[in-house]
């Protein structure tokens, strides 16, 4: 069932960006390939991944942070009744891997301790969620998904509306409080480069990434996110200020302008990467000198001593969301859990374990400067970047993915 493993694998990898792929790959290796019309199984309902982690090559010790242990048990304002949800069970479906390990320590265990709820963990999967809702047998209380995917699911009627009388959105960043989803972490698609190559004169943004005269050397670009990111970056390379990118993309000829700019860089891209581990590896090995990359991966490589730096300028900020499947039994519990997960104390705690970044602005008041410097939504980094426009992509993802793949394979 090659396709099936692979589909889940890709999906989870993209969402999770850290280590998830390896564990699924291990599954893939163990169960690789039974004949059959490929793709069949992928459509007929995707396999669910068992929440085990299997180490494989190249994983990132992102969860290794000694500061996390210090300071005793986490206290969260408003959560002081240890019997609040006693006898209730919350099933959380996360991305698995390093991300869920971090969530277990910073979110799930504290929630269980502070409210008395029992927590069961599973691994998230869009196909499974759809099947559950269609069959009216919803097992999950709260699941995680990319924000784009969450909004599509919401639009297709698979999610419960979020109850903002329970969830305090006062200090959320913009576009965090969705109708059917609440963004819980930021991650970022950024420009990363080798410091030994460009350390004296680092590339300042996508204009420099496109400038093969001033910044010679092989480059790696992201194909797993398809048009998302690539079109924005192309326009910025073409001189569009970051706050006007989506305006131009929405205007007539804007998309064509982006593709025309992409034509310029096409011959200079030696690798189009598919897995989040690739750009960090390619940069570390010196196979490429500049790459688009996910910040978490580069952070991990940096901590292993690789001579790589992040240019936050003109990075693309994206989010993952918590969602509640339609027809869930414990709706109030679900909302309370999402509220808990977006409290400043909890989000600051999570960032200690994994370099994904709070969606509640107040969380930064509880952090060291050293940690803030590594997080994509910390004020200093956030103002340099562009926030991915979920509503633009919700409308255009299908069409532009087709156009992008067509452009890519020509």
């Amino acid at each position, binding site marked *: 069932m090659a396709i099936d493993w692979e589909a889940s694998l890709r999906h989870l990898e*993209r969402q999770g960006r850290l280590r998830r792929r390896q564990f699924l790959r291990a599954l893939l290796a163990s169960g690789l390939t039974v*004949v059959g*019309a490929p793709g*069949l199984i*992928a459509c007929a309902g995707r396999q669910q991944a068992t929440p085990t982690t299997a180490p494989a090559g190249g994983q990132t010790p992102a969860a290794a942070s000694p500061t996390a242990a210090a300071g005793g048990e986490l206290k969260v304002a408003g959560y002081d009744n240890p019997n609040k949800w006693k006898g209730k069970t919350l099933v959380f479906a996360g991305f698995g891997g390093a991300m869920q390990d971090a969530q277990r320590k910073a979110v799930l265990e504290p929630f269980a301790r502070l409210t008395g709820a029992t927590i069961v963990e599973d691994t998230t999967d869009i196909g499974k969620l759809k099947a559950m809702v269609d069959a009216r047998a919803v097992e999950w209380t709260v699941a995680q998904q990319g924000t784009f995917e969450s909004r599509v699911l919401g639009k297709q009627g698979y999610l419960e509306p979020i109850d903002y009388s329970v969830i305090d959105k006062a200090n959320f960043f913009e576009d965090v409080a969705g109708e059917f989803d609440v963004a819980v972490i930021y991650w970022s698609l950024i420009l990363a480069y080798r410091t030994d190559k460009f350390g004296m004169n680092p590339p300042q943004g996508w204009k420099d990434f496109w400038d093969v005269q001033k910044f010679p050397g092989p480059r790696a670009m992201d*194909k797993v996110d398809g048009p998302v990111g690539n079109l924005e970056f192309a326009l910025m390379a073409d001189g569009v200020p970051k706050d006007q990118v989506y305006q131009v993309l929405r205007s007539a000829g804007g998309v064509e302008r982006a593709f025309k700019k992409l034509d310029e860089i096409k011959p200079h891209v030696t690798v189009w990467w598919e897995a989040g581990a690739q750009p960090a590896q390619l940069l570390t090995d010196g196979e490429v000198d500049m790459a688009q990359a996910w910040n978490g991966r580069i952070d991990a490589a940096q901590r292993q001593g690789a001579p790589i730096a992040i240019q936050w300028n003109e990075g693309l900020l994206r989010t993952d969301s918590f969602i509640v499947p339609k027809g869930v039994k414990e709706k109030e519990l679900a909302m309370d859990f999402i509220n808990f997960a977006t409290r400043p104390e909890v989000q600051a705690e999570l960032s200690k374990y994994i370099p994904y970044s709070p969606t509640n602005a107040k969380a930064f008041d509880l952090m060291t400067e050293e940690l803030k410097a590594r997080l994509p939504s910390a004020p200093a980094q956030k103002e340099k970047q562009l926030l991915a426009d979920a509503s633009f992509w919700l409308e255009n993802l*299908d069409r532009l993915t*087709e156009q992008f*793949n067509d452009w890519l394979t020509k």
Partner: protein
Amino acid sequence: MTTGKVLAERTYQESIISRRLELRRQLGYIVLLLPTLLLLLVLFVYPIARLIVTSVYDGNQFTLEHYRRIVEVDLYLRVLRTTFTIALQVTLLCLILGYPLAYFLASVRARTARLLMILVLIPFWTSILVRTYAWMVLLQRQGVFNRWLLELGLIDEPLRMMYNRIGVLVGMTHVLLPFMVLPAYAVMRGIDPNLLRAAYNLGASPFQAFLRVFLPLSLPGIAAGSLLVFILALGFFITPALMGGRTDMMIAQLIETQIRTQLNFPFAAALAAVLLIITLVIFAIYNRLLGLDKMFGGGY
């Protein structure tokens, strides 16, 4: 009663008994096959039927829109073409590498062959990530092979052996080789060595004996292996995605994107159905040309 009558009566009785026995035997087969048939029905026929149904609906509306899109947008036919080309190339490579290997394994002692078989199977058991990174170490611009070749002065510039079609073929052949070797080996083991001796005895040279006796007898193994490799190769995408260039996109990748980000299950189902149909057509042609059914029935 005449002797003739008695004999006729007995024959009649016997024929009834034998017919009953025959019926019973057939019933026995059916009962024995029932679990498998049910399993196939539930796990194979039903999902395929669901898939086809999914592909012709948009909401609750019957539509052929998804199929129209596949035919009208360049991308999908181009990627399908790439998919079949890569699958064919991989099958040929597996055949070229796998046949001599299976021949060798079949000619050594069974115990030795079993040990060597483990070597063939190792890539199959290894995580795709580990395999891909291993190839990266060997094949990339500053990889082991390029460094050797540069040091030996055989090349001046590093060769590009990854992130293009070469990378895809190397990676996929590595994984799929066992599927060629195993059936070929099984068939070759079953060939009676006395047949070759008889050929020598009748004056055939070793090459003639191979060409006219061994090769035809080993054909069922090759046919089965090639078909397995080809069909498995059609569904690959992680290997081409990781080791290939931008043009080496395979159809499974597009199907997966439809599910993962577009959440467009009907269109994904239509793409999968098209792949299935083309595969079946190819299988039918293959069967017509090579007479697979006969081959599997006889030969060994």
